[in-house]
């Protein structure tokens, strides 16, 4: 229950920011969770959603912040191999779920 409050708050904030008011996570719209991204498709990090402080900071330190350019490099099950700038990271799918991205050219 307590977990829900900040989530919905943040989703609202995001919906306000985008005039379309689209729910995050839809595939055709803007933001989708990182694991849904097609391998090889370049994308921009939209936001880190509903992650704890520990995860947020860890991601920040790796350069996974709003606006970062990312690309998923692998397609097998298990952790994702992610390219962020010149860095390569292995990132668990659970954690990747918190990262919302928009595909770009």
């Amino acid at each position, binding site marked *: 229950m307590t977990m829900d409050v900040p989530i919905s708050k943040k989703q609202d904030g995001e919906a306000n920011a985008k005039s379309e008011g689209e729910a995050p996570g839809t595939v055709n719209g803007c933001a989708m969770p990182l694991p849904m991204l097609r391998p090889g498709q370049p994308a921009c990090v939209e936001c880190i959603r509903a992650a704890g402080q*520990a995860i947020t900071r860890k991601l920040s330190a790796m350069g996974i912040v709003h*606006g970062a350019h990312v690309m998923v490099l692998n397609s097998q099950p298990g952790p994702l191999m992610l390219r962020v700038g010149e860095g*390569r990271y*292995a990132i668990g799918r*659970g954690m990747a779920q918190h990262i919302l991205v928009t595909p770009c050219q």
Partner: protein
Amino acid sequence: MACECTGVAPGIQGLRVTVALAGNPNSGKTTLFNALTCSRQHVGNYPGVTVEKKEGEFEHDGMEIHVIDLPGTYSLTAYSPEELVARNVVINEAPDMVVDVVDASNLERNLYLAVQFMELGIPMILAFNMSDLAEARGHSIDIERLSELFQVPIIRMVAHKGQGIQELKQAIVHVAGQTPAQQPATVKYGGHIEAELDKLTEALQGSVPDSGRPTARWLALKLLEGDEAVIGQIRREAKNAIDVLQKVEDSRNLLVRELGDDAEILIADRRYGFISGACQEAVRSTVETRHSMSDRIDMVLTHRVLSIPIFLLMMFLVFKLTFAVGDPLMGWIESFFGWLGEAITTYWPEGAAPLLQSLIVDGIIGGVGGVVVFLPNILLLFLAISILEDSGYMARAAFIMDRFMHKIGLHGKSFIPMLIGFGCTVPAIMATRTLENHRDRLTTMLVAPLMSCGARLPIYALIIPAFFPATWHARLLWLIYFIGIVLAIVCAKLLRGTLFKGEAAPFVMELPPYRLPTVRGVLVHMWERGWLYLKKAGTLILGVSIVMWALLTFPQKIEYSRDYNQAIEDVSSKQLPAEEAEELVAELEQARASEELANSYAGRIGHAFEPLIKPLGFDWKIGTAMIGAFAAKEVFVAQMGIVYSVGEADEDSVPLRDKLRENYSPLVGFCIMLFSLISAPCMATIAVTKRESNSWKWALFQLGGLTALAYVITLIVYQVGSICGIGV
């Protein structure tokens, strides 16, 4: 390779400065540290945490420069012990400056750490390492411009080729000579955050340490980020703690309302904003990011089908190197200590202080030898691990195994220690250092002894042929190893579900680009770990060896059931053929040794334990041998040889096997193997667990827990087996 030690004569009275060497993991920090300090370095641990503390010295221009090698970190938050240590060293040990090693080929992320050091307000030098790689990738960095923007000196270097080392030394001397010390640029966080920072800075006036480091602004920033260590510190030390923390709460809420995000996200965003702003001005990238060489290697090594066979091949090679190359070396060390013991026995003045002789030969040489004998294996294993790590493959191995390890509640990186455990548990437990999460690390450490180590093999090799037909041999051996693996998985799951409950550590790990490891780097790496093993585990093992020796030797005065000396003399006087006489004497001496052992404390303990181990099908003889096995598992075989008076026994000893077959059933034989597999790991393991977990609690828990588990399982197997009449 290039060792750039300046030859300033010692004794020149110069200034002494302390430099903290910081940087991201894989930024080449260790290479630089080695190049700066050459061999003048020492390794220890930071008190209270198992984070390695490396320090070194060098001289330049008559100035003595002391280097503290901070642990490699991406950030300076309080979430991992390494980050906390790095931060605390800068705050508490007040070095004169920080040299931050930056991987210039991955600039923006590496500068994130630099910015956090800048926030601490300490003079800093940026060492732009791997500049050649950055240029090869098409990034051209205007170092002068960047240096202006950050207001810190920047040195271009390629540490592993020795480029830029002299310039860096010069810069250190230069910065140390500046008065007042040069302050790096201040990162501005934008109107809203700055306003809140000002409020908090003001509230903190008066509760800031007199030294001026950390500054009130830094404390305010950390409070706003929700940094637990700083919040705790304020709560303990500040007079107006409640007021300050209330203000922090208000500010955080305000920022969420106004900017729509948590303060820590906003602050991280601004830091990256500052960095990318600077980089836009000073860095030109001519080439679009595309798949690098490293990515192409990854396409093969982490391929969905090929990755597993390649991984298994790599592990096979590691094992091959460790044991095939190590075993002959082990043999040499063993024979050296054997020779040393014999030499002392031979030249020892006849009849003089026999106890002292026994202590030196059996206790000390035997004990030290028992530790040193594993050194080739350990060094080779660490050599292999260093090569895997430095080349970048280790991170891929963890990546590949994560899916499977995750299912048993562990981390991808736990796989490596478990695998090493098949060789020897001691380096396995030391290898858990690569695990960042404390719970993952303890779990791995506690279950690692269940991976059947090499020292247990002699026990199986003795027992299996003694009781079982040849067709079963391989299958039984396989079964024992399999039981160990299954138990390790079950125990890991159990521990993660109970004692080490909690969210699985989020799996994020850098996959560093593949690199050719340098010979020097790999050797230094290997030696550091090997030396730690020798020094620390060695002292404790030596102590316990002496205790074991005493248990087996005392009490001295014993009433023999017959007069052996007399009997031996009788044999000699009987004019028997030499061969027959020798045989009789040997028999008598074995019988005497057996009686002495029965009467020793170890024997008495074995007797005392008999009622307890009877339900497992064990008698006091097995009990005594098990006590010996605590010193080192393979000692079990030799001990059984002594209790059964068959003289020098090894795992191929036919008379010992005959004795075993006469006295025990196959079921008991199986139970001995089972108990040896699961029960109390050897004392070296306990010692190293204590050291690595930093507490006796976990070491004793491992000892007690595994022994209890062994007892219960063996009890069930023996009782069920007896009732059903299997193998009796």
